[in-house]
């Protein structure tokens, strides 16, 4: 029986770009850039893109297609195929299933807020909120943090309904498979996303000076807040680390989702040009479209003091500041809807990719049908979503984000970079990368992939471990009342990781028994 395949090259590129394009492109990038040297930030940003992002993109595309040739779509099988002499490498590959499952569990909930706010924008639900504080009260009420006295929401019912709709949309798309589900959805969702973003960018860039009483609060000066270079920033290590982190998170490398998508390619399908195209599509969305929306608009309406307060608070920017600003424009309800719908579409194209590794693992290694795999995935992740929804204010989401994204991504990317350049071997890697390739990658990348990218990743791993992670691991950043919730979440995540490892062990044991 044949496996699923992508229908077209453009389809797989749009799916990978869709996986990479998410909330971070529109909310995280502009804040990080503005807070780390403005235009000067783009120098470490581009260097990180060339030395870290692009090589990782090519690594994941290549090993994904390679593993797919052996019938594996997920990291345990692919890593084992690349290093068969090592009995333990497949267990490191578990991170490539664990991370996406954990992220999916909370990402779909955040995504459902966007669907809810799209509806609220059209219906005028938050139209009465005319200050940062009142908009924040609205958001807290929606999240169930406002208590019984919240004037907008009595409880979590509304949020839960939108979560159910979002969850069903995600699992349904995945259940239709690679070609009829993910590819078909991304083929209309990505162009739609670009069009909606472009409409919003044109609207923001033509705002001029919205408040005549404050002529300094103009869109041009808002762009200046983001782009005026602060050369002294280049001397600060923190800025270089922020640039590397932004590149790392924005490209969806290190999740294990790109290698699953690439595993459905044929041996002669190009990966070099496709990887580059997906990466540049993401960069265009982030730098050109994402950089022209939130910061210039917020500057024009809040001024330099107001924007410094909110620039680095991602959720506040998206759910408090932007709806407030969009309300003040002509046709504010329509633009508010477009803003949240844009982010919702970006979120769905990312979350469906997060579902794929676990579903593909069950299909490949347990011979389940896609429908059976989707039902099991849906039940498990639905259960995992519940603590995120009901204990959102107790640090559950942050804990899952820490292990799924911050730790999981860097560790997984470091393993696959070393595996690719050193264990698989640079000769094999280079040949595999160029098989069926439509472009010739410059020879300098043999050196970069083998030495620079792994060293870069190890440096990030070590610095983040001592600088940020130890405090989180030791619960120093957690309030005493939230510690029980965080510890239970941590134990739950550990249990999930052990469970997935046992599944991998069972698969390989059964295989060994079959082969005698």
């Amino acid at each position, binding site marked *: 029986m044949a496996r699923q*395949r992508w229908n077209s090259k453009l*389809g797989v590129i749009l799916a990978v770009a869709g996986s990479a394009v998410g909330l971070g492109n529109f909310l995280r990038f502009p804040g990080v850039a503005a807070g780390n040297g403005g235009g000067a930030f783009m120098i470490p940003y581009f260097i990180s893109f060339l030395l870290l992002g692009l090589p990782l993109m090519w690594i994941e595309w290549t090993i994904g297609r390679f593993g797919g040739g052996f019938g594996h779509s997920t990291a345990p099988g692919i890593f084992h195929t690349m290093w068969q002499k090592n009995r333990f490498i497949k267990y490191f590959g578990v991170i490539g299933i664990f991370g996406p499952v954990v992220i999916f569990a909370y990402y779909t909930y955040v995504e459902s807020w966007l669907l809810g706010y799209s509806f609220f924008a059209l219906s005028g639900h938050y139209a009465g909120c005319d200050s940062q504080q009142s908009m924040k009260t609205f958001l807290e009420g929606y999240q169930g943090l406002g208590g019984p006295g919240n004037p907008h929401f009595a409880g979590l019912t509304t949020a839960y309904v939108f979560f159910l709709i979002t969850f069903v949309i995600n699992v349904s798309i995945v259940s239709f*498979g690679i070609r009829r589900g993910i590819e078909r959805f991304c083929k209309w969702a990505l162009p739609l996303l670009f069009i909606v973003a472009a409409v919003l960018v044109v609207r923001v860039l033509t705002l001029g000076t919205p408040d005549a009483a404050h002529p300094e609060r103009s869109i041009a000066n808002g762009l*200046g807040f983001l782009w*005026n270079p602060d050369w002294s920033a280049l001397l600060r290590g923190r800025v270089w680390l922020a640039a590397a982190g932004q590149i790392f998170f924005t490209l969806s490398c290190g999740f294990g989702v790109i290698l699953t998508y690439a595993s459905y390619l044929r041996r002669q*399908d190009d990966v070099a040009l496709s990887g580059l195209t997906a990466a*540049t599509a993401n960069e*265009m969305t982030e730098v050109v479209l994402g950089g022209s929306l939130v910061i210039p608009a917020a500057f024009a309406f809040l001024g330099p003091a107001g924007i410094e307060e909110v620039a680095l608070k991602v959720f506040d920017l998206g759910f408090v500041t932007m709806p407030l600003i969009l309300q003040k424009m002509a046709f504010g309800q329509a633009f508010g809807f477009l803003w949240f719908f844009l982010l919702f579409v970006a979120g769905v194209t990312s979350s469906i990719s997060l579902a794929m590794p676990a579903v593909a693992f069950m299909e490949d290694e347990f011979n*389940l049908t896609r429908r059976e795999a989707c039902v099991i995935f849906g039940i498990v992740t639905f259960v995992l979503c519940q603590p995120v929804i009901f204990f959102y204010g107790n640090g559950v989401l942050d804990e899952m984000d820490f292990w799924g994204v911050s730790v999981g991504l860097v560790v997984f990317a470091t393993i696959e970079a070393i595996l690719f350049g050193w264990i698989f071997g640079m000769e094999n890697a280079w040949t595999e990368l160029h098989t069926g390739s439509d472009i010739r990658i410059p020879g300098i990348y043999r050196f970069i992939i083998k030495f620079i990218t792994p060293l870069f990743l190890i440096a990030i791993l070590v610095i983040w471990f001592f600088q940020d992670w130890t405090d989180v691991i030791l619960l120093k950043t957690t309030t005493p009342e939230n510690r029980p919730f965080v510890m239970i979440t941590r134990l739950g995540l550990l249990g999930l990781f052990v469970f997935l490892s046992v599944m991998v062990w069972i698969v390989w044991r059964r295989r060994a028994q079959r082969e005698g």
Partner: protein
Amino acid sequence: MKLGGWIFMLISWGIIIGLFVYCMVRTLTSGNPPSGEDEEDQPGPRPEIRKDV
């Protein structure tokens, strides 16, 4: 916005848009056929399993 800001913004946009357009043109004009024709709902071993490295 200062002159340096405009320069950084336009150069950054130029590099990214230029690279994106180049990639899309190459992707859409390359002669490679679509990835596959044989979609199948059921899982199973691949038709073209290759020898191990």
